[in-house]
C-alpha cells in the first residue's frame, strides 16, 4: 500500500517516476471506466492517455476531499463522455434509457452465448452508456452510491434506479440462458 499524499506531493514537485507509479496503480480503473463508456477498443487507449495527462495537469488542484480513486474515476468518466459527445456517439437520450430493451438475438449473439462471461459482457455492451457506467463503477470498481454520484454527478436516486433496471434486464436474459443450460 503506498502513501497517496506523499506520492501526490512528489508528483506536484515534478517527479515523473512518482507519476508513473500512480499511472500503474490506476490504469485498470481508468481502463474499465473508459472502455465501458466508449465501447471501442481502438480509441480506448488514446482516451486513457488523455485521462492521465489531465490528471497530471490538474493534480495540484486535488485537495484530498475525496478518495484519489474517486477523483481519477471522475476525470475518466468526464473525458470519455466528452469523447462520445465530440464524435456524436451518445447512443441514447434520457427518455430512451427508461424504455431500453435488448434487441433480438442474431447469429453472432448466439455464438457468444456459449460462454456465460462473454455473454454478459456482450449484453452490457449493448446497453446505454449510463447503465454500463453504473454497473462498472458499482460492481467492478466497487464504488459506493455516494461515490458514483460524485463521479457521474447523477443524483443517488438515479444511480440506484439505473443500477436496478440494468441488473433486472441482465437477469432476465441470464435466466433464459441458465434455463437453456440446464436442459
Amino acid at each position, binding site marked *: 500500500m503506498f502513501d497517496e499524499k506523499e506520492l501526490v506531493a512528489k508528483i506536484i514537485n515534478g517527479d*515523473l517516476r512518482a507519476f*508513473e507509479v500512480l499511472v500503474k496503480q490506476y490504469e485498470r480503473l481508468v481502463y474499465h471506466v473508459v472502455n465501458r463508456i466508449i465501447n471501442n477498443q481502438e480509441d480506448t487507449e488514446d482516451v486513457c*492517455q488523455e485521462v*492521465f*495527462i489531465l490528471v497530471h495537469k490538474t493534480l495540484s488542484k486535488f485537495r484530498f476531499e475525496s478518495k484519489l480513486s474517486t477523483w481519477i474515476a471522475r476525470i475518466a468518466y468526464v473525458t470519455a463522455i466528452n469523447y462520445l459527445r465530440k464524435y456524436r456517439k451518445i447512443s441514447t437520450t434520457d427518455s430512451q434509457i427508461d424504455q431500453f430493451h435488448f434487441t433480438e438475438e442474431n447469429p453472432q449473439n448466439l455464438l457468444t452465448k456459449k460462454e456465460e462471461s462473454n455473454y454478459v459482457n456482450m449484453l452490457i455492451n449493448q446497453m446505454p452508456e449510463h447503465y454500463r457506467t453504473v454497473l462498472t463503477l458499482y460492481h467492478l470498481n466497487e464504488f459506493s452510491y455516494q461515490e458514483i454520484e460524485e463521479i457521474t454527478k447523477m443524483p443517488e436516486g438515479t444511480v440506484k434506479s439505473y443500477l*436496478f433496471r440494468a441488473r433486472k434486464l441482465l437477469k432476465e436474459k*441470464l435466466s433464459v440462458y441458465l434455463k437453456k443450460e440446464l436442459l
Partner: protein
Amino acid sequence: MNESDDEIQKMATNGPNELPGGAPIGEQEDLISYSRLFDELKKEPEVKLTYGFSANVIRKIKYQKQRQSEMKLALLVAGLISMGFWGFANSIYFEKTITALPGNKWIIFAGLLLLVIIEFLDQKLVKERRLRKQER
C-alpha cells in the same frame, strides 16, 4: 421499482443466499440468476492496454512540457527581436541602412518573410505530425 425484485437484488448482494421455505419457485430462481449475474459483474474483463502504457504517458507528458518551454523561449526571443527592431527602426541608423541597401530592397524583406512562413508551416504541418506518429 418492483419491490420483490428489489429485495431479491439486495439479498443477492448482502445475503442471505436463500429465501424462506415457502417462497415461490420463481423468486428462488431469480435469486440464483441474480447471484450468478453479480458474480459475473465482479469478474474483471481483460485489460487491453499496450505493454508500456505508463511509459507512453510519461513520454507524452515530457514532450508536452518540452513544447511548452520551447514555446516560451520562442516567445521570449520574438519579443527581444521585436524590441531590438523597434529600437533600431527609431534610431538614426535605420534610414542610413535602408538607403545603403541595393535598389530592390523590398524583395529582400519579402524573401525573409517567406522563409519565416515556410519554417512555420514546416514545423506545424510536417514535424509535429511526425512527432505525434512517433509517440504512438
